[in-house]
C-alpha cells in the first residue's frame, strides 16, 4: 500500500518484552521463551535498534522474566548488532553490588550492547516478597543507582549508604562501554521525571498507563527543564513503550488484537490487586481501577493509548510521537497470547511498510 511521501521521520524502533503467559495460547513455558527469542532474532533481521526485557516476579504478568541478565545472555548469543536493554531492572529489590556485577557481565558477553534501564517498580507483592518497604523506594533506588555508577566507573570504590555499605571494592568485570546508556522508567511521578532530567539520563515512558495526556506533557516538560537546568545540552533519548499491532486494514488492526489486549489488562490488574501503599506511590493508588477501566476498549483504550493500526495509521501515530520528542518506540508486540503468527506478521508488515519512512531505522538496518 503506497504511503504518501513526506519528510523522513527520525525514530528508532525496538522490541519490548513484558510477557504475559497463557498456557492455552503459548503452549509450554519452553515454547514461550523460544518464541520470545525467535521474535528477538526477527527484530534484528528487520533492522530494529534494540530489544528490551522487563523484570517482574511472581505472576503471569511478567513473572517469566525475573532476571534480565539471564535472558539477555541468550539474546546476546543469538544476535550480533541488536542493543539489549533492561526495561527495567527493579533496583530497590536487589543488592546493587550484584546488579552492577551481572549487568557488567551482560555488557561484556554482548560486546558492549547493554542499555541499562532502571526504575523503582510499583508492585506491592514484589516489595513484600523481597521484604522492602515501599516507603523507602525512592531512597533505595537512588542509593542503588549511585553504587552501580561508582562500581562501573571507579577502579575501586567505597560507599557509605543508608541501606548498603561497601568498602574498597573492585568489581570484575567492568562494562565494555565505559558507561552503558542509562534509561529511567517514569510513569506518573513528577519527582521521577525531575530526577532523571537532573541526572542527565534518558527517559523511558509508558503512556498507556497515564489517563490524562496532559499529565505526560507536563512531566516531559519537567524532565526537559531539569535536564537543561543541570547543564545537559545534548538531546536525550526518550523511549516510549506501547502495545502494538500493525494490521492489514484499520478494521483488522482494531479487532485482531482486541481479545489479547483485554487478557493482558485483566492480568495486569490482577497482579496489582493490592495497591501500592506508600505516599511515594500516591499516583498509583488507582492503578488497578485504571487498568480495569481500559477494558472498555473503544471508550478508554483504542485508539489513543495503543498503537493498533494499519501502516498508514501507525505512521501517523509515529509522527505525533516524534513531535512530542520521542526518539525510540518500544513495541510491546507480543502480549496476552496474541499468537506467534500474528506477532510475526505484525512486525514484518511494520518493517516493510512503515520503517522505510524513518531515517534512524534505515540507519540501523545498514
Amino acid at each position, binding site marked *: 500500500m503506497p504511503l504518501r511521501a513526506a519528510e523522513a521521520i527520525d525514530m528508532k524502533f525496538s522490541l519490548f518484552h513484558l510477557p504475559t*503467559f497463557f498456557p492455552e495460547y503459548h503452549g509450554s*513455558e*519452553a515454547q514461550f*521463551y523460544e518464541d520470545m527469542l525467535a521474535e528477538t532474532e526477527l527484530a534484528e533481521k528487520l533492522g530494529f535498534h534494540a530489544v528490551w526485557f522487563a523484570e517482574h*516476579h*511472581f*505472576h*503471569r504478568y511478567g*513473572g*517469566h522474566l*525475573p*532476571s534480565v*541478565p*539471564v*535472558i*539477555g*545472555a*541468550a539474546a*546476546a*548469543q*543469538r544476535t550480533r548488532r541488536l542493543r539489549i536493554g533492561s526495561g527495567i531492572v527493579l533496583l530497590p529489590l*536487589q*543488592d546493587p*553490588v*550484584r546488579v552492577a*556485577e*551481572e549487568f*557488567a*557481565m*551482560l555488557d*561484556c*558477553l554482548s*560486546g*558492549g550492547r547493554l542499555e541499562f534501564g532502571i526504575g523503582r517498580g510499583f508492585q506491592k507483592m514484589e516489595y*513484600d*516478597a*523481597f*521484604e522492602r518497604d515501599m516507603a523507602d523506594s525512592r531512597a533505595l533506588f537512588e542509593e542503588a543507582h549511585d553504587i552501580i555508577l561508582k562500581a562501573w566507573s571507579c577502579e575501586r570504590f567505597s560507599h557509605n549508604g543508608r541501606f*548498603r*555499605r*561497601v568498602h574498597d*571494592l*573492585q*568489581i*570484575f*568485570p*567492568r562494562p*565494555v562501554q565505559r558507561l552503558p546508556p542509562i534509561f529511567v522508567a517514569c510513569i506518573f511521578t513528577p519527582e521521577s521525571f525531575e530526577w532523571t532530567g537532573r541526572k542527565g539520563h534518558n527517559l523511558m515512558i509508558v503512556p498507556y498507563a497515564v489517563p490524562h495526556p496532559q499529565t505526560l506533557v507536563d512531566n516531559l516538560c519537567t524532565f526537559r527543564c531539569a535536564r537543561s537546568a543541570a547543564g545537559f545540552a545534548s538531546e536525550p533519548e526518550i523511549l516510549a513503550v506501547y502495545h502494538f499491532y500493525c494490521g492489514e486494514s484499520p478494521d483488522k488492526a482494531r479487532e485482531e488484537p482486541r481479545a489479547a489486549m483485554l487478557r493482558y489488562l485483566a492480568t495486569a490488574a490482577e497482579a496489582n490487586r493490592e495497591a501500592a501503599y506508600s505516599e511515594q506511590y500516591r499516583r498509583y493508588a488507582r492503578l488497578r481501577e485504571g487498568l480495569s477501566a481500559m477494558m472498555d476498549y473503544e471508550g478508554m483504550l483504542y485508539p489513543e493509548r495503543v498503537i493498533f493500526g494499519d501502516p498508514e495509521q501507525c505512521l501517523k501515530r509515529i509522527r505525533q510521537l516524534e513531535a512530542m520528542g520521542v526518539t525510540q518506540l518500544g513495541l510491546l508486540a507480543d502480549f496476552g497470547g496474541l499468537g506467534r503468527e500474528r506477532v510475526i506478521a505484525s512486525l514484518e508488515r511494520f518493517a516493510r511498510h512503515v520503517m522505510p519512512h524513518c531515517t534512524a531505522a534505515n540507519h540501523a538496518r545498514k
Partner: protein
Amino acid sequence: MRFGILYNTDYYPEVHGSASRYYGQILEQVQLEEQLGFSSVWFGEHHYSGYSFGSPPVIAMAAADRTKRIKLGTGVSLVPLNHPIRLAEEYAMLDVLSGGRLEYGIGRGFLKYSHEIFGISEDENHARYHEGTDIIVKAWTSTGPFSYEGKFWQLRDYTFFPKPLQQPHPPIYASAVLTPESAIWAGKCGFHLSTGLFVPAAEKVRNIIQLYRQTLVEHGHDPRTREVSGVYQLYCGASNEEARREGGRYALQYFKFFSELDQRSPHTSKAFEHYGGGVSRVFGGKTYEDLEKARLLMIGDPEYIIEHIKWAQDYYGVDYLIFEVAQGGEPHDLVVKSLERFAKYVMPVFETGREAAASETNRA
C-alpha cells in the same frame, strides 16, 4: 564414569585481555568440550577480585545457547550469600531455556571476605544455606501459592514462575569437602554430593564421602541412585615432564591466588572450624611434589591420568569427575590441547564414560 569441566578461573588481564575476550575463549572451550564428549560444564560463583563468575547463570545461559547436549552446572552456587528466590528464579530460567540441562551445584562458600561484601555473618552460614536451599526446592516444586516462615526469609502466598523443566526439580549436588555437618546434611536431603579431591586431606575427604553415603542409607535414600562428584585440576600433557612444567605451574598459581583471597580475611567463625583457619593454611607450605605424591593433581600424560582416575575410583568411590581447567593464567591453546589429548587417549579407556558420551551425542 562421567567427566565434566569446571570453570573456577582467576583472571589476569595480561594473559586474558579484555573481559569480553576472556569470556569468549571460555565459551569457545565449552563448545569444544561438548564436541569431545564431556558430560557437563560447570561454572563457579565468586565475587570480585576476578575470581570465577559473579552470576553463573548468566555465563551458563550463554554457554547453553552455543551447545545442544552438554549439561550446565554450578560449582558452586553460593546459597547463603544470595536471596533464595532470586536463585530459584534464575536457575529455573536457565533450566527451561537450556532444554532441561541444569545440574545445580550448591555450597556455603569458603571465603570470609565474600561474606563481608554482602554483610552476612559467617555464624549464620549453615543456617542460611539450609533455609535458602529449602526455599529453592519449595519454589521449584510448588504447584500453587505457598508461604514460608523462615529465620532469614518470610514469604506469604507466594506464587513461583517459571517452573524448571526437569521434574520434580533439577538434580542438586551439595558440596562437602572437610565439614562433616555438610556431608550429613547432603545425605539427609538425598542430594548428590560434590567434593574437592584436590584438597590436601585425602583421607578426610574419603571419610566425608563415606559419612555422606552412610547418611543417605540412614535416611532411606539409595546410594546407587546418588552421584558422588569430585573436582581435580586437569592438565593432560604429551609427556609427564611437559604436563608438570605447564599444568603444574598454572595449578600452583591458582592455589596461590585463592590462598591470598583467603588470607585477606581469616576465618574466625565456628562454621569453618574444619578448615583449620582457612584454605590458605590447608595448602600452606605444600610443594608441587607434595601435592603430586598425595595424588591431588590430575596432571600428567594420558597414562598417568588413566592410572590416577582408576585409583580415585577405587579410593574414593567417585563416579563423576569434574576437572578444573584454564586456571592460573593457563593460555587458551594449552587448555585446548590438554582437553583434546584427554578426550583422545583417556576417555575411551573408561567404557561407561565413552558410552554415556556417545549415547548423549546420538540423542542430541
